């Protein structure tokens, strides 16, 4: 069986053959159209061993289609998928040797938990004693040792998804693909399983590609996130980079729910860009190549805004709403003066909540403000 070289080492550490080969997965200019509509457009990326990568995007962004093309359930129009140095673009899913965790679990209903997890090992002709040990170890790691004889329908959703996870990783595939695996679970269970998936991934050094539309989930789990929109990758970066240095307004909005403040560039220096806002204030942003006078939108996340005495900062306004969200307070401020008066959203520690109707100033660290050319006026 060709897959045998993917799992030569029964121990729970990643076989050296895998980590040694460098990148377990690279995708080049993948393209897919469905009856004229482009679902995935020239997607390229390289994923390193042991990396947790998330495709993040809303529905229709092409994230799932990309995953399906990597898994082999859907054939790309052009481009290639290379797993561990082997071009698998035209191979059937069963010949790629990858692991897949589905949103709907898809455990075999006629098999017990144990049989479900043993199934991929039986396919590979793993000797009985070793099979028993590996299935046992994997189930124990996922906290399922007490329910090996149960059937999938006797398990809760969270338990079923754990079994599905075990089944996908028991044969040590070089890459495990997960398609919104926690999508069908409630919030609390989702949080718990996130932590667990992350723990198992780190413990075993798994390479994971994860698809989700939940930005919080992506931030918690991922080493790198590919933010997808309209079939393209907007930005592929670490969560921190995405958060602090979004490259497009979409990323700033999708990940940070940023405030967009219209204005124009007043001055450019090596250290910063000065933006004259339409509301009248002057905002210092990190440097951005733009000509003086260009219409821009300055993006700053609600959590990166601070209160200051009225008159200071880039904006003065009155507090319109205050909402307590646990240890956080969400507030909106209506700027006074100037033509533009869209509400500005901010998040503050609960102790620093402003009073309703209070006049406040808003300030932000230059490093936390990104400037994007204003698409509407620019072209």
């Amino acid at each position, binding site marked *: *069986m060709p*897959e045998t070289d993917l799992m030569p080492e029964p121990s*729970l550490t990643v076989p050296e053959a895998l980590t040694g080969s460098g990148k377990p997965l690279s995708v080049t200019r993948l393209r897919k159209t469905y009856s004229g509509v482009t679902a995935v457009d020239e997607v390229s990326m390289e994923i390193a061993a042991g990396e947790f990568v998330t495709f993040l995007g809303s529905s229709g962004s092409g994230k799932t289609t990309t995953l399906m093309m990597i*898994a082999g*359930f859907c054939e790309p129009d052009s481009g290639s998928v290379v797993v561990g140095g082997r071009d698998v673009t035209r191979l*059937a*899913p*069963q*010949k790629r*040797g*990858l*692991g*897949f965790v*589905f949103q*709907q679990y*898809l455990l*075999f*209903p*006629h*098999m*017990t938990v*144990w*049989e479900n997890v043993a*199934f*991929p090992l039986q*396919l*590979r002709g793993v000797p009985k004693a070793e099979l*028993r040990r590996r299935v*046992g*170890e994997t189930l*124990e*790691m*996922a*906290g*399922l*040792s*007490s*329910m*090996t*004889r*149960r*059937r999938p329908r*006797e*398990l*809760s*959703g*969270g*338990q079923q998804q*754990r079994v599905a996870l075990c*089944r*996908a990783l028991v*044969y040590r595939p070089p890459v495990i693909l997960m398609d919104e695996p926690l999508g069908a679970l409630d919030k*609390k*269970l989702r949080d*718990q*399983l996130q932590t*667990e998936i992350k*723990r*198992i991934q780190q*413990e075993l050094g798994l390479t994971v590609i994860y698809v989700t539309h939940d930005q919080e989930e992506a931030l918690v789990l991922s080493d790198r996130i590919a933010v997808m929109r309209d079939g393209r990758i907007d930005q592929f970066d670490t969560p921190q980079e995405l958060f602090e240095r979004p490259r497009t307004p979409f990323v700033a909005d999708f990940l940070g729910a940023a405030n967009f403040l219209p204005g124009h560039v007043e001055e450019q220096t090596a250290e910063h860009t000065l933006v004259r806002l339409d509301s009248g204030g002057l905002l210092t942003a990190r440097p951005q190549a733009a000509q003086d006078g260009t219409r821009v939108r300055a993006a700053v996340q609600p959590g990166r805004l601070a209160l200051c005495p009225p008159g200071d900062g880039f904006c003065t306004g009155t507090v319109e709403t205050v909402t307590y969200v646990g240890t956080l307070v969400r507030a909106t401020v209506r700027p006074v003066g100037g033509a533009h008066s869209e509400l500005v959203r901010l998040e503050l520690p609960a102790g620093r909540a402003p009073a309703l109707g209070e006049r406040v100033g808003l300030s932000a660290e230059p490093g936390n403000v990104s400037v994007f050319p204003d698409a509407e006026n620019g072209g």
Partner: protein
Amino acid sequence: MAVLAPVSGSAAPVPRKKRRSRVSLSDRRTRFGLFNAAPVVIYLLVLFIYPIFSTLLLSLKGENGGLTLHWYTDAFQGANLEILLTTLRISAETSLLSLVIGFVLAAAVSRLKPLWAGLVMVVVVVPHFISALVRTYGWIILLGEHGVINNALTGLHIPGAPFQLLYNETGVVIGTTSVMLPYTVLLLYAVMKGIDRRLMAAAASMGAGRVTIFRRVYLPLVAPGLVNAGILCFILCLGYYLTPALMGGEKQTMVASLIDEQVMKQDQWNGAAALGIILLLFTFAGLLLLRMLKSAGEAYRNRGTAS
């Protein structure tokens, strides 16, 4: 090696405890239920239970009025025994053939788009609305020595053509299978439709090839349907009269024909009643087998797994 993770918050559903239901006439729901069931109970008593018991009585009645097993020993002797065995054999052959054809057909239809699937199912089921007599004569025209099929085979210079396709076991099995096919197709189609096709994708993602997926995932999931359809088909065949009578030869006489002959030609009601009861017992045996197969399957699935 790893820390034993706490099992997720929502515990697995506890196996339902059977509540001992206390049935008493004072219970309003029980009385209401009895009231509702009464028409059906009376209907069954008059039209099913009474006739069956009178048939049973008839089959045990001796010529001098006393009780006897004479008619049963008769049924299991000589020509009669042969007819019983023929009936069982032809029923088994027909069930097997309908299962195989039904499986292939249902598997194909279950993959079609709903519109096409509906159309094919209509094609499969509609002939059933036509009288079995008409359909049987249709087969006779097709399968005759100078029928469409033999003419075609002779035209193609197939060695041995024309074949004897009528008035022998081949003819009976072909005809009866065509009558039974809608049952197997409908039953199997319903089961196959209920199988999540993504399970096959899941198996493929783990490295299972087509044959393995079929053997380890698809077939076990269809198996209950196969057992049901097979037994149903078998039971229906046991008492089937028309097609075997018209398309079979002398050696293919089945129990139903024998009963017909005993009643209509020999005025032999007691023997006919005994044969009827034997058929009924075969049917019960079939149903019992179904139950046993089911519980055996369940036991097989629940067999010990770990270590």
